[in-house]
């Protein structure tokens, strides 16, 4: 998010999902939509049937790779080098949108000063790719008018994630694809309301609508509205919170609706910290691996039991509605939190979710036009500043969110923080699969799902499997410098030699016992996509 916020001024999908159908070229970079965002995957396939040309950049032969004009089976952790090489070709071969670069961007000379060193011939060996394929992708992407880039965690979950995102934005700007219908830079958000959680200010630096904690006017506005004194000191990100627990600086942690004991990297450290923190509150709908360490567990309602809104990956605010009664004494999350506030002498007087949205609208410019009455009729995309505003399907049309011009922010390629060693010769990359959601607390309760996808598995190339004496279906031990887990081997040509892949879902065989604590220095996103590992027969 920080990468796009810096270059364009807004860290969200620039275009609507439906606009994919109008793209001439779709570059799918580090995203596996037919599994992780299946209904977007289906629409990308529809676009292909209508003539769009697909390019896939992924270390695995994902399903869409079979339908792509070109698939670059890139080595994990080398995205920035590849993106620089693509731009190198586009500039060298004069395929850029000069008028757009001239009129709507700044920093082109700096961009060229960096990417000129990244010739396809030099980058090919870094990324484990044929330089001719890199050139072909650059030409195909540059030929698309419009061309859309769809990317996901394969770009962000690296210690160089932010530079990867900025490099993607550079590429799109270079070809004039930002601020154009059916073009754009489109990060697919993983969770149902991760966009909304960001929008609502569940971030250490921002109030709702990305109003900065560091801005005194913002502080003054919220102090007046809430009648309390607020801190202007930016808070800690979640990985920093764990570090602060280690230092003894954080003594109390309140977790609402997350299961870090499966989903966070390096679970050994997470477990130690959740045990160390003096007081842990967990608010959830099920007992899970994290509640096992909690001092208090508060029962919450799920989406089918409450009124509210989710904001999807394309910035569209949509309603959820109560369909069934809440089980037992469970209460809505906002209600529980309000009741804690009341006990702290912090009254907020909310009696319904609708009233919460009214306050959000009154204090959040990009959400100013929303109310439940309106959302029952239509679901506009933000920015939607007032009740008559139609919403904004395409961002940055005519003018960027950051101002008149977008800025090129070039980056040098830096290898991943943890590279294979003699003891751990493989790169372990993690991800998602179609049938499960995160830590399986929800999907794991449907029998049919578990019949199809009931246990942890590791994908390994035939070359590496032969070397380790592993056959398809064998139980294997997968280990990293942090630990060891067991899983079933799937020997597959989806992967290149030297790379193994594990979905992150199952608590039994949770791959996050192996992943490292390395994070991107700006966003603190963990490097889930690269750590050193080895596989042996169990």
């Amino acid at each position, binding site marked *: 998010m920080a990468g796009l916020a810096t270059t364009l001024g807004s860290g969200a999908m620039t275009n609507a999902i439906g606009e994919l159908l109008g793209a001439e070229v779709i570059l799918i970079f580090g995203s596996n939509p037919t599994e992780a965002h299946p209904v977007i995957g289906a629409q990308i396939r529809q676009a292909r049937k209508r003539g769009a040309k697909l390019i896939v950049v992924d270390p695995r032969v994902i399903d869409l790779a079979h339908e792509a004009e070109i698939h670059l089976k890139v080595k994990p952790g080398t995205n920035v080098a590849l993106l620089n090489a693509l731009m190198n070709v586009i500039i060298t071969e004069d395929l850029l949108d000069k008028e757009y670069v001239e009129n709507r961007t700044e920093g082109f000379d700096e961009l060229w000063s960096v990417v000129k060193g990244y010739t396809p011939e030099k980058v090919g060996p870094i990324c484990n790719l044929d330089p001719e394929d890199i050139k072909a992708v650059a030409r195909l992407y540059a030929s698309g008018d419009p061309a859309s880039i769809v990317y996901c965690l394969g770009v962000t979950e690296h210690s160089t994630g932010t530079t990867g995102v900025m490099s993607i934005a550079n590429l799109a700007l270079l070809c004039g694809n930002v601020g154009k219908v059916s073009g754009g830079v489109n990060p697919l958000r993983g969770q149902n309301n991760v966009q909304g959680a960001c929008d609502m200010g569940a971030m250490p630096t921002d109030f709702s609508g990305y109003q900065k904690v560091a801005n005194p006017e913002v502080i003054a506005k919220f102090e007046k509205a809430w009648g309390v004194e607020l801190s202007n000191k930016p808070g800690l990100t*979640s990985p920093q919170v764990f570090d602060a627990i280690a230092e003894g600086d954080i003594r109390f942690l309140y977790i609402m609706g997350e299961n870090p004991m499966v989903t966070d990297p390096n679970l050994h450290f997470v477990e130690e910290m959740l045990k160390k923190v003096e007081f842990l509150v967990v608010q959830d709908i099920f007992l899970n691996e994290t509640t096992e360490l909690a001092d208090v567990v508060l029962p919450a309602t799920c989406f089918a039991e409450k009124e509210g809104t989710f904001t999807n990956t394309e910035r569209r605010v949509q309603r959820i509605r109560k369909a*069934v*009664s809440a089980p037992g004494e469970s209460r809505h999350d906002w209600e529980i939190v309000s009741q804690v506030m009341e006990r702290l002498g912090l009254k907020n007087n909310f009696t319904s979710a609708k009233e919460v949205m009214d306050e959000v609208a009154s204090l959040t410019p990009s959400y100013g036009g929303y109310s439940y009455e309106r959302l029952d009729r239509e679901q506009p995309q933000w920015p939607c500043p007032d009740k008559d505003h139609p919403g904004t399907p395409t961002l940055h049309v005519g003018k960027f969110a950051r101002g008149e011009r977008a800025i090129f922010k070039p980056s040098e390629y830096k290898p991943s923080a943890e590279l294979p060693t003699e003891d751990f010769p493989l790169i372990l990359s993690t991800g998602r699969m179609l049938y499960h959601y995160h830590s399986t607390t929800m999907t794991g309760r449907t029998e049919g799902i578990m019949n199809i996808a009931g246990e942890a598995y590791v994908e390994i190339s035939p070359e590496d499997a032969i070397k380790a004496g592993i056959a398809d279906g064998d139980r294997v031990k997968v280990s990293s410098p942090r630990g060891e887990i067991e899983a079933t081997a799937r020997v597959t040509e989806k992967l290149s030699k030297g790379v193994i892949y594990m979905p992150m879902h199952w608590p039994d065989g949770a791959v996050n016992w192996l992943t490292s604590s390395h994070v991107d220095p700006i966003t603190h996103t963990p490097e889930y996509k690269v750590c050193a590992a080895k596989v042996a027969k169990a």
Partner: protein
Amino acid sequence: MHNVIIDGQSIEVEKGTTILKACEQLGIEIPTLCHLEHLAPEGSCRMCVVEVEGVQNLQISCATPCWDGMVVTTMNDRIRTFRSMIVELLLAHHDVDCFNCSAVGDCKLYQYAMEYGVEESRFDHIKKVPVKDESSDFFNYDPSKCILCRRCVRTCNELQSNGTLSLKKRGGDTFVSLPFDKLFKDSNCVSCGNCVSVCPTGALTTKASKTYRSWEVTRTRTTCSYCGVGCQMDLLVKNDKVVGVEPADGAPNKNLLCVKGKFAYNFINSPDRLTTPLIRKDGVLTPASWDEALDFVADNIKKVKDESGPDALAGFASGRVSNEDNYVFMKMMRSIGTNNVDHCARV
């Protein structure tokens, strides 16, 4: 724009509008079996025929665009007889074992047979169809109930774009099949269930649909709680339990869902759901009252804040809960005096 007169009512429609769409705009209901929004017009079932002045044959309204000055009649004896014959021909190849069919109450063929007064078919039932395929974990396929409207085939190929379903054989022997006559569980099917959602009869039914009749359920429009696409869908509820999910025509999903949205709803009514606050006592999470639990939380917040300042507290909100939940949570943390609030966007 074209001016059209339908059943004596005048309407102005945009160029390219089909007669069916124009009828919809006027609130005139036309029976359809193969027609489906978001699919290319098929025009194979012929149920939607109407009479157009100056044209000899009845016209299929789903695939015929309006022209300026068109005069349309949507019901008369000729049309009624034609549609009755369609229903009768379909019934000839349909296993009318309705007592054993979970589509009962939801079946378009049943509905039109009633509407057009077709009690039985005069034609011989000669069609041979393959045996049922109940191999999927989520749905059943009964070819004897199929009317070959091809909604499922087109949805699988044009919209889901998975290429699992196709037609096999010719003429009266035609049936919907999978490549190499595989079972669903052995095919490339991804269990999205979109074919099931569009089936107008009982040929494709969810396994769960045996447990409810369509008139027993209430439908609540909501947003899927899995990934970030934000698919719109209806929760089907019977006796305060979610018994099924149907896709809705929302902007992000246009009537499609995936296996998680369509079938992975059992967690909602799971007996494992938390129903009471729990406080750890002697190392064990023990049921407690809300007052007890909330006091315990608030007292500890106060204690830590008093002893170590507000920045000794931190909270994680969530990309799983609603905007309203996240907003109130961040309001609480900041009102306590700290900006240590984050969520799982990073992880």
